[in-house]
């Protein structure tokens, strides 16, 4: 008796998931009385499959040597539909314009009655409503904790721990790259230099436009709006401003008044917005560096703040592992 997992996308996060499953193998068996097995994995070029389960260490070693499997991958959906599994972990590269291959993988898995765990923001930001309905129609779960805030468990906090609260708004720093740049601007660096430093340290992509134009944060706003507030919306519904126009003079003037500038995603029933905001120094949202932080405003408990590392191989893998184990716990009748 096991929970059989397929990992779609074997880049940094996919490898982290394999490693996390390997690390927690004994704990999972002891806690749930069953195994979590990786039965297949694929990236853009190759695939590997075994009904008996694959050793995570072998997958990692294969990838280090060049490719995850021996089998050439032609079509990810066709591959998924040719094998038997319980949960798809979808961590292929995100595409905010079309949803990319990830959207097709998730549709296929849900349509065929498989659970899905993903951190792929493109499919969620473009087709959340459709995918959520597909999951419900097929009696399976779609979980995506790591898609917002990496290791910071904001979605499960809102949906599970704060059950019974009326959540009036969520405001947060949901992109570590922008926060790093703005934090360095607090130290007196101009925008261009702070961005260059972020790229050199690996916090920003060579093409950083998704981050600095607020696109990445807007995707997370869409995911939170759908999942926490039940607002049927997509990327086009978010009012987005990035941080490229922030000058060092503006940061210095804000600092003189005891403010810092941070890129904030705000979600409430009447506002979906990403914009730079003035935050009082010492406020829970005035964090520095690559940290993510969110403030959940509730009617009974008041404001609740949560922070954590927003990205990284094992940080994101930890959120995926948590979703996998939640599915394992709630689906005791899986094979």
């Amino acid at each position, binding site marked *: 008796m096991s929970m059989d997992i397929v990992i779609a996308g074997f880049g940094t996060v996919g490898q982290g998931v394999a490693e996390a499953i390997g690390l927690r193998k004994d704990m999972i068996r002891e806690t749930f009385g069953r195994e979590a097995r990786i039965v297949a994995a694929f990236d853009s070029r190759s695939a590997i499959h075994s009904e008996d389960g694959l050793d995570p260490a072998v997958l990692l070693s294969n990838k280090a040597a060049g490719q995850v499997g021996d089998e050439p991958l032609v079509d990810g959906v066709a591959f998924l539909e040719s094998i038997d599994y319980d949960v798809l972990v979808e961590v292929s590269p995100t595409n905010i314009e079309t949803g990319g291959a990830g959207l097709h993988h998730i549709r296929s898995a849900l349509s065929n009655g498989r659970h899905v765990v993903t951190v792929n923001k493109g499919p969620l930001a473009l087709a959340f409503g459709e995918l959520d309905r597909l999951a419900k129609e097929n009696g399976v779960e779609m979980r995506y904790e790591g898609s917002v805030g990496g290791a910071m468990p904001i979605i499960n906090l809102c949906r599970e721990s704060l059950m019974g609260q009326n959540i009036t708004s969520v*405001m947060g720093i949901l992109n570590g790259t922008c926060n790093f740049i703005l934090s360095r601007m607090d130290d007196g660096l101009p925008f261009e230099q702070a961005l260059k430093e972020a790229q050199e340290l690996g916090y920003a992509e060579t093409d950083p436009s998704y981050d600095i134009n607020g696109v990445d944060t807007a995707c997370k706003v869409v995911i939170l709006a759908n999942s926490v507030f039940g607002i049927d919306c997509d990327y086009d519904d978010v009012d987005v*401003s990035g941080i490229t*126009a*922030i*000058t060092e*003079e*503006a940061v*210095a*003037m*804000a600092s003189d*008044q005891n*403010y810092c*500038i941070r890129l*904030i995603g705000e979600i409430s029933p009447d506002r979906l917005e990403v*914009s*730079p*905001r*003035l*935050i*009082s120094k010492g*406020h829970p*949202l005035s964090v520095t560096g690559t940290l993510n932080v969110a403030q959940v405003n509730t009617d009974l408990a008041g404001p609740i703040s949560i922070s954590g590392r927003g990205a990284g191989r094992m940080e994101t893998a930890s959120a995926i592992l948590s979703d996998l184990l939640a599915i394992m716990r709630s689906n005791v009748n899986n094979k």
Partner: protein
Amino acid sequence: MMRVNADLYVKDVPGQLVAALEPVSIMEGNIVGVVHHRDQVMNDRIGVNITFDLEGGERLEKLMGIWKDRDVRVSRIGSVVEKFPMDYLLIGDISPSQLETILDEVRDMLGMESLDIRYSSVMESGSRTALINANFTSEENLSKAEDLIRELVRERDILAVRGLGV
């Protein structure tokens, strides 16, 4: 939120101070300070000065009613200040004279309690930063002022960085 300062007279018997302070908590007010004036005696009552923060004038009316029911006499109530702050940082091609004309109009129309504008020097790109700190006397006027600033920003391709509460 308003800050209220009141001079009360309570009977000099056990339990009367609680009778005066408890209603502030009932109205979800936050007591900032209490000073006994044992030297101020009037008709066997002693003076108490109390400062507290309270949300909205309606609660203050209710509080006055409770004090009356509990035989707590109010000799003075004042220093009632309710401010709705607005903080904006505008970045772009800003003309100080135009901005000040607009904000003067806002002040005249909407009863601005205070207004402070600071400017950076103009950068090579022609961009300038203006930091606006203003206080309004009502939430409604604050909301109208925000609409006017949004319009200004939209017309002139200026980035507006606003405070969290706006």
